[in-house]
């Protein structure tokens, strides 16, 4: 047993599993459900591996292929005071549960005061050559929906801390976990109880010349770009949003006002994406501090293509961020 708070190096995926296990030990009302999550299999990405052995099939519940039905079932459980954590096998499949999330879960407290303590884990993002249906970033749909909270951790520590916060929250929280980070990213994670509050961004790197505002796997692309930019004499803030709804408006505005130049980056396609809202926020409320246009870098207005040259053309990366930021810095 690790001493409380001591940091160990864990993968992003292990941090998710740890948060689930610790919350299930702490609170008997927490359960997980979804396709293939139970038994020894432990889910398509093994995020729930070991949980069925420890907690049994009642608390680690395999479901048929029925996202619409089992998401609403989880809402009914939440009405009764359970705290289900639903695994969407891929974030791409969340569209099949759209009604249950945006019509049912999101509106219940407003319409009749019924809290919905529900977490939906959605493995998202691409770069893994997985094609149009295993690479998507559908967060903008849910940020657009009143009544939901949306988080997107970029580090193992945040993966644990935000999942813990999401499970303890009394509202439906969509938890977008980055598939490309699952096993590629290892980082320090506090042992034992660790909560990262929903709604607080994190300044991952500080610099006075330009703000790169991003989240999820793109945080690491932005940090790599910022390193190169520093060598070119451009010092960047890299603001990791961590929570997409509610947005940490104060942190966004503070960074943009400080640097006067902002580049918003996300893997999701740019058109009507979250970057548009952030750009509008900055233009509206930090206009007098700006020294250039607010720029956005996102996926193209296409399905996410499969073949490496096509997917690389589709998706932002460190090189594209570097070029866009350099161009903005010289504006």
């Amino acid at each position: 047993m690790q001493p409380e708070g001591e940091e160990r190096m864990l993968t992003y995926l292990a941090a998710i599993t740890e948060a689930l296990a610790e919350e299930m030990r702490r609170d008997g009302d927490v359960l997980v459900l979804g396709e293939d999550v139970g038994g020894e299999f432990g889910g398509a990405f093994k995020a729930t591996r070991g949980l069925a052995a420890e907690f049994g099939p009642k608390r680690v519940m395999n479901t048929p292929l029925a996202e619409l039905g089992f998401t609403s079932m989880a809402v009914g459980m939440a009405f009764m005071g359970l705290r289900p954590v639903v695994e969407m096998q891929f974030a791409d499949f969340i569209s099949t549960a759209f009604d249950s999330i945006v019509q049912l879960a999101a509106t219940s407290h407003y319409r009749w005061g019924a809290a919905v303590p529900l977490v939906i884990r959605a493995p998202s993002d691409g770069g893994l050559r997985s094609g149009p249906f295993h690479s998507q970033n559908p967060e903008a749909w849910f940020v657009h929906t009143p009544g939901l909270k949306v988080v997107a951790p970029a580090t193992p520590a945040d993966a644990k801390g935000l999942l813990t916060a999401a499970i303890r929250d009394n509202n439906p929280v969509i938890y977008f976990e980055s598939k490309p980070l699952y096993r590629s990213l290892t980082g320090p994670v506090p042992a034992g109880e660790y909560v990262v509050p929903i709604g607080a961004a994190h300044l991952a790197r500080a610099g006075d010349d330009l703000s790169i505002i991003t989240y999820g796997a793109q945080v690491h692309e932005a940090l790599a770009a910022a390193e190169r930019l520093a060598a070119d004499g451009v010092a960047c803030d890299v603001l990791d949003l961590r929570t997409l709804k509610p947005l940490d408006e104060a942190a966004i505005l503070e960074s943009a006002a400080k640097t006067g130049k902002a580049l918003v980056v996300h893997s999701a396609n740019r058109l009507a994406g979250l970057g548009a809202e952030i750009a509008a926020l900055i233009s509206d409320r930090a206009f007098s501090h700006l020294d250039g246009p607010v720029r956005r870098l996102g996926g193209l207005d296409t399905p996410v293509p499969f073949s490496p040259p096509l997917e690389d053309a589709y998706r932002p990366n460190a090189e594209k961020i570097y070029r866009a930021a350099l161009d903005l810095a010289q504006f």
Partner: protein
Amino acid sequence: MNPTRLDPRQRLELYYWMRLTRTFDERMVARWKQGRGIGGTFSQRGHEAISVGAGYALGPRDVVAPMHRDLGTFLLRGITPRRMFANLLGRETGPTGGRDVNLHGVGDLGLGIFSFISHLPQSLPVGLGAAMSFRYRDEPRVAVAFTGDGASNAGLFHETLNMASLYNAPLVVIVENNQYAYSTPTHDTMKVTDIAQRAGGYGMSGLTVDGNDVEAVYHASAAAIERARRGEGPTLIEAKTMRMLGHAIHDGAEYVPAGLLAEWEARDPVIGYAARLVQEGVTDPVELGEIDGRCQVEVTDAVEFAQASPLPRPETVTEGVYAA
């Protein structure tokens, strides 16, 4: 079949709840026809025996997930006529505080009533979730969820019934087959004549009852509820009736053949039950008249309460989007 015999007091209660539902509905429909309603609303006419018969079969700690033609269930489970009419008029004193329209949004966790959303059959999986929470906590409770014939064609119906049967959930599903999904008759949307047949595809029990016979609905529901409580799994009950007015208040339903309506008018669930109770010596016209009068007084009181209730203040519009 009959798990419990209904005594005369219970039979009069069934009549009272149906009559209260009918009186409330007539007052509501009249008011809306006069242009004194707000938004749209849904008549309950034809559905009284289903919503009352099934709702009456619930135990005190059971949970119900009704739909928009289940005023009888809402009332007998404890949403007062006052709160219900206040919701119709968008008042602060309704269960939704003016946030949701007509019977939508009306729910009360303390009374074991889930609010429904327009997207039928969403009450089914939500009811399944309640049922699975009882299983999770080893509680001898049952969930009853309602939907319509139209919604039995949606994919979610299939997903939910499959899971309910797979998990042997303590769930009873009531399909109110009122023969029309808005303007489209059931025979234009499915090849089966009895929706209860579909239960076989999920390996669960299914039966069809006369949805205009409150005692038949009650007995079928009570048997299914007790079966579920014993851990013997879910049941699909199809209750056949006729939607006697339009889909919603604006709809004249000219597309429904007059002869079909006349046929079902002769089988009116409320009037028919009154005649049966007199015929079987349970009551007499004087006592029935007293019950009818009581319902009129209650509904008048509800309307007056609603009209006197404050409208919500606009500055509260953002309150309640999130739970604390």
